[in-house]
C-alpha cells in the first residue's frame, strides 16, 4: 500500500497542485462593494452611462506595451459597441512604475484633466507609445520612449493649451496624484498592467478583443 503511494507520490502531488491551482484560479474574485472594483463616475477619467450594467476598469501605465495594445486596438471597438450604447461604463486608472516617462505621462494626464481634455491626451500618448513599441520596436525599460518634452509635444498636438500644460508639468504639482494613484492600485494587489476589471472579475496580462468582448457579453 505504502510502496504504491511512494511510487506514485510525485504524480499525485503534481495532480493535486494543478487541481488546487485551477480551483484557486476559478474562484470568484469579485467584491462589488468597494471602490476598487466599481467605476467611479465622479472620476474625470471615467466615461459612459452611469447606469450601464457592466463596469470596466483599466489599470494602466502609459509606457506599458500591452496597455498601448489594449487602448489602441481593443478599446476603440469597446467604445463603439458597448460604451456608446450604454452597456458599459469605463474608468481609466493610471499607474507609473516602468520608467521616468511613466511619471511624466502620468502627471501629464492629471494636467490634461485641468483642461478637461484627458481623453484626447490619453489617445495621443498611446498612439505615440504604440508606434514606438510596435513599429519602431523600442523597449520602454531600456529605451527612452517618452520624455517630458515628448509629453508636451503630444499635449500640444491634441489641442491642449501649451503654456498651461507645460507650467503644470514643470511644476510637478501632479506628482502626488500619480504616486497616490499607483500606491492605491498596489494596495489592492495590482502589480502589473494592463489590469482589467470587468464587473469585479480581474483579467491581466496578454488579452484579445475576442476574450474581452466575450467577458462583457457574459456579464450583460
Amino acid at each position, binding site marked *: 500500500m505504502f510502496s504504491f503511494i511512494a511510487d506514485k507520490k510525485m504524480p499525485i502531488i503534481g495532480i493535486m497542485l494543478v487541481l488546487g491551482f485551477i480551483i484557486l484560479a476559478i474562484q470568484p474574485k469579485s467584491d462589488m462593494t468597494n471602490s476598487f472594483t466599481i467605476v467611479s463616475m465622479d472620476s474625470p477619467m471615467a466615461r459612459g452611462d452611469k447606469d450601464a450594467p457592466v463596469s470596466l476598469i483599466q489599470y494602466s501605465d502609459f509606457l506599458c506595451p500591452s496597455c498601448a495594445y489594449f487602448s489602441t*486596438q481593443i478599446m476603440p471597438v469597446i467604445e463603439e459597441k458597448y460604451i456608446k450604447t450604454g452597456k458599459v461604463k469605463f474608468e481609466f486608472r493610471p499607474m507609473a512604475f516602468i520608467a521616468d516617462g511613466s511619471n511624466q505621462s502620468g502627471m501629464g494626464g492629471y494636467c490634461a484633466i485641468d483642461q478637461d481634455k484627458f481623453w484626447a491626451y490619453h489617445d495621443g500618448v498611446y498612439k505615440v507609445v504604440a508606434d514606438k513599441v510596435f513599429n519602431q520596436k523600442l523597449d520602454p525599460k531600456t529605451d527612452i520612449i517618452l520624455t517630458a518634452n515628448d509629453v508636451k509635444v503630444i499635449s500640444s498636438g491634441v489641442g491642449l493649451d501649451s503654456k498651461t500644460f507645460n507650467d503644470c508639468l514643470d511644476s510637478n504639482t501632479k506628482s502626488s496624484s500619480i504616486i497616490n494613484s499607483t500606491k492605491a492600485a498596489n494596495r489592492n494587489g495590482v502589480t*502589473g498592467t494592463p489590469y482589467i476589471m470587468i464587473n469585479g472579475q480581474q483579467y491581466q496580462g496578454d488579452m484579445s478583443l475576442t476574450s474581452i468582448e466575450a467577458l462583457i457579453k457574459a456579464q450583460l
Partner: protein
Amino acid sequence: MVQSIQLALIKIQLSIKTVFFVLTRWKYFLLAVGVSFLFFELMYWAFNLNVLFIILSSWKLSIIEKLEVLASPLFSSSGPTAAILMVVLSAIQGMNISILAYIIRKQKKIDVKLAGESSLIGVLAIIGLGCPSCGTSLITPIVALFMSTSAVAVSEKITAVMLPLAIILGLYGLYSVGIKAANIRSQINLKYSDTNVAPTS
C-alpha cells in the same frame, strides 16, 4: 567522435520512428491532440482561468463565440512569433505525454523522471509568457527577489529565451520518451519472438 555522432543519429532516428509508430495508433494520436490543446489553453490562460471559466460556463455566449475565445491566443497582443512558439511547444508536449502514456501502459508503472521532465517544460512555458515591462510576467517577481534594481531588464532577457528553451527541452524530452518506448517495444518483440506469438503492440 564520428562513432559517437553516428550512434546519436541512430538513436534519434530510432526515437523518431518509435514516436511515429505510437502516434499512428488513433488513441495515442487523439491523446496527443487533446493534451496539446489543453496545454496550449492552460499556458495562455494560466493567470486568467477565472475569466476562461466565466466565458465557457456562460449561457449568454454561443458555442461559436466560446470557440473563438479558445482560438484567441493565436491573435493576442503577444504577436505571431509567440503564438507560433506556443503552438509548437504544445504539439511537442502533447506528443510527449502521449508517448509517456504508452510507456506507462506497457510498463505498468509511472516513470517519475520522464514525468518530471514534462512538468518542467510546462513551468518554463508559463514563465516564458507575459510582458516583463508591464509586470505581468511570472519571472519578474522571482528575479526581483535576487536583483531588485534590475528585475525587469533581467526578466525580459529570461523571458525571451524561455519559450525557445522550453521547446529545446521539449524536443529532448520527446527524444527521451521515444528511446524509452523503443526499448519497451523491443522487449515486447523479444518476448513474443521467444514464444513464437505475434506481438499485439
